[in-house]
């Protein structure tokens, strides 16, 4: 997978439109920038850790990277299908202060099972730098989207964008699974 395709895969897995719908907001309809940045960095750190340790992790689990790609593909397909059915995330309780970057931004909005599986798969396949480039670009896009006040951006647009990214994630999952099957 090229870096450009990785960016697309992470945009779909992190589903910036769906995540935007669930972000805690400040007055004016903007996402709380510090909390969003913190949550995004935490998620990126988790992606980096999983990608970096993907080799030892898969060895411990006795799974070849090629076979794990199939699993990541299945996870992406399931997550993509779920998003198609429920394009808006569940409203989660938001704790006071900076804790919001951990819950609900990092978990469960960003670091879902499909993102974690993708991080392991691309970490062992495409490498850590490419994975960070893909994940980082998608999170940067989310941050920019978070700065746009929610009101002008109709929820309906975000919902449709969420569905489109869910469909894209489904396709990424199919592609990953086929790649894992065809690989040696």
């Amino acid at each position: 997978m090229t870096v450009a395709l990785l960016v697309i895969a992470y945009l779909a897995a992190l589903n910036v439109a769906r995540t935007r719908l669930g972000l805690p907001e400040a007055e004016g309809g903007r996402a709380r920038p510090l909390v969003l940045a913190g949550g995004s960095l935490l998620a990126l750190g988790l992606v980096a850790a999983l990608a970096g340790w993907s080799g030892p992790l898969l060895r411990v689990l006795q799974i070849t990277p090629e076979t794990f790609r199939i699993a990541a593909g299945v996870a992406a397909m399931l997550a993509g299908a779920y998003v198609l059915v429920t394009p808006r995330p569940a409203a989660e309780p938001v704790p006071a202060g900076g804790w919001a970057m951990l819950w609900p931004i990092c978990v469960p909005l960003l670091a879902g099972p499909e993102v974690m599986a993708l991080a392991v798969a691309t970490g062992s396949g495409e490498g850590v730098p490419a994975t960070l480039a893909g994940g980082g670009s998608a999170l940067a896009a989310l941050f920019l989207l978070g700065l746009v006040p929610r009101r002008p951006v109709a929820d309906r647009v975000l919902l449709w964008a969420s569905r489109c990214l869910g469909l894209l994630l489904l396709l990424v999952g199919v592609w990953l699974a086929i790649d894992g099957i065809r690989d040696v």
Partner: protein
Amino acid sequence: MARRVAVHLLILGLGLGVFRIAVVPAEVCPVVTTAQVNEAIDEAAAWLLRGLGEDGRYVYGYDRDADQVSRDYNGTRHAGVTMALYQYAAAGGRPEVVAATDRGLAFMLDRLLSEGDWQAWQSPGEEVQLGSNALLLAALAMRRQATGDPGYDDVMRGVGRFLLAQQQPDGRMHGYWNPATRQAVPVQGKFATGEAAWALALLADAFPGEGWGEASLPTLDYLALQRDRDMGFLTRMPDHWAAYALAELGPGHLDEVRSGYSRRLAGYFGVRLRFEAQRRGSGLNLLVRWVPGTPAGVGTAGEGIAAIRRLAQEDERLADLVPNVEDRLACFAGMMVERQSTAGEAAAYPRPGLVQGAWFYRGYVQMDDVQHVLSGLLAAVPVIEAREVAG
């Protein structure tokens, strides 16, 4: 909020558990030594030779639980087993194996018939088959490698001409020849076309400059591009015989189509062996992965990936495949050494000689089960040796 976190963690944990069991069970690849692999090879060859009767026929199959020897027989499998035994002899310089296997060879040579300029053997009760003759030719080529004896060179060329007589302009091969009508039967055998391509490639190695290698190329291209569609397969067939043919012809004959085909074949064999390594045959794993696969099926994947390894080592375009291909081959060797019936296990059955050294699928072993695993293990030895040296 704590409740929501707990619910998420619970769903995540359950999801991980289901994934581990159903999607990515551990791929268990026992680590084995060269000595263990060689012992397994010797045991397998001994099983085949114990089953070789004075009439030149092998034991076709044995059900250890019912203590029943199969009455079936199949000419192509007979030729395949004979070929594998000569492969075994060629790998270790074993003249006593050649002498014994010559009985299996005589079973075929006694049934040779001629038509025009070609020769072919006909197994009792069967038509003249492309596959059984391709494997007779392969057996003779292996015997020649084992002994250096040119005594059957004319037969090899005669059978080679039979293969050419079955070949069509687009490379496909008619699978049968009917002695009553003296006509080729325009039906393809599932594996026969690949077997014929390999046999022609082996002829090219034995008799360079006679055009046999060039003759195999249209058939190889047909296998790469058209065969699966023509035969109505839903998925591409992992044809280990085609892999043997590609390896035998070597990089000099590897154009873009054949190179791509080699890569695809490597993928088919690779996923087959990875999947096999996930099978335990017990508990929850039995429900999601069923019992370990037929030894013949696993063996052909081992043979195929070993052939691709040989090719990838010689061809830069495929060099990136070597590490994974070697991992899968080592895994194949580990799995099959572990699954082989030992003398101790065999002692519990009425006929230990038909159990020891064999690989069973749900209590039954067939001659081609042992043949394919034997050939695969022979090809895996260099990888296991290299890993031992490297520590």
